[in-house]
């Protein structure tokens, strides 16, 4: 065995989202599976959004990180749709990482009428307004905090109920 599953997970914990450097791809819930062969490590990744331009960068970063940490001739990263990415895949540590970056983590619940609540990542106020459902990247929206007067971003909720 060239490596254990655990060793590879550990390496992937060090691969951060290229646009949110406080959160790893593991904590974003993007890693679907790790398969260790005799000479090859295959990693299945779930894209957050299909059109995300960071995907090829993430792929390269994973390949480099694994090859650097583990002696292996071949690392294959495959993007799969067999499991859909939903925002509840983000771990507790991932939610904290988002907040530290100034991005509100996605809501845990969406009401039956489709509404959801976002709090300011800086002061925690609920007195916020939506500026734009869409933001600088596919997975984020733009909001404004009326309490501490800061603009901020929030992760869009993604659920198979939508």
């Amino acid at each position, binding site marked *: 065995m060239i490596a254990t599953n655990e060793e590879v997970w550990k390496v992937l914990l060090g691969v951060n989202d290229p646009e949110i450097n406080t959160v790893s791809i593991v904590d974003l819930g993007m890693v679907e599976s790790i398969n260790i062969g005799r000479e090859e490590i295959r990693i299945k990744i779930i894209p957050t959004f*299909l059109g995300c331009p960071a995907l090829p960068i993430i792929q390269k970063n994973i390949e480099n990180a694994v090859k650097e940490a583990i002696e292996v001739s071949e690392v294959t990263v495959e993007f799969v*749709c067999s499991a859909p990415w*939903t925002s509840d895949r983000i771990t507790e540590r991932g939610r904290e990482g988002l907040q530290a970056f100034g991005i509100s983590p996605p809501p845990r619940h969406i009401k039956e009428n489709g509404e959801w609540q976002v709090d300011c990542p800086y002061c925690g106020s609920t007195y916020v307004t939506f500026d734009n459902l*869409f933001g600088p990247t596919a997975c984020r929206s733009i909001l404004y905090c009326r309490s501490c007067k800061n603009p901020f971003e929030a992760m*869009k909720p993604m659920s198979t109920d939508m």
Partner: protein
Amino acid sequence: MTENDPINQDYQKAVIELLYQLADDDFIHAFRGSEWLGLAPHIEEDVAFSSISQDTMGHTAMFYRLLEELGEGSADHLAQGRSSIERKNCVLVELVNGPGNYMEKPRYDWAFAVVRNYFYTQAKAIKIQSLKNSSYKPLSDAAVKVKMELYFHLLHWKTWFTQLMTSTDEARKRMEEATERVFAELDGVFSQGSYRVKIVDFGLIEDETILRKLWIQELSPIFQSINLTMPESFGMKHGNGRDGEHTGDLEQAIQTLSEVYRLNPAAAW
């Protein structure tokens, strides 16, 4: 079943045909959307519309990759290297955004953009819902993913549509004119072309008449709320794109979007 099995071959052909329709629709639609970059009515809309176009281009790339896996050639080539006559997209998505062009005096029509995007996105959402039960597993998996992203697109265009329809007299007039133009081509969006029977028989997606009916069901209450009449029938004024019938607008779009690719098809992207 083996690869040489005639049923298997027929099935694969039907899958390929449907994938071309889905991929080409989203590709040209996303291209027309991207031509609005910097020209939308305000900065927030610029952010929103370009984000939507980027998502749609992501769906396109995924559909072309599924074709690539079925031996149809590289996704890049499928997107950029095919002539207009080979394209299976509906005519509605290929029509220009308005007079002028992106590089020179674009005088694009925002009412047309809103109506086209809303009606197309609603139709796509209905198709995607049906594809969740597709007999072709890669397509049903992809549908679950696309559906979630579409939720936001649909919310966006529905908001624009109802707000402009209930705004000033001039807005209402322009929106009604745009609605007429879109209805004149809307049948092409639902059309499954000459492969329709096989596509449906193999359980890839529901029949176009059912999809059209679901679309009407979905939009009727919205129309009622803004006092707009649903027409008795839709049209395919400039022909059926599924069978290779297109306007000069598509040729112009392909010339523009493939300009760099044609300079050096071997270049890395």
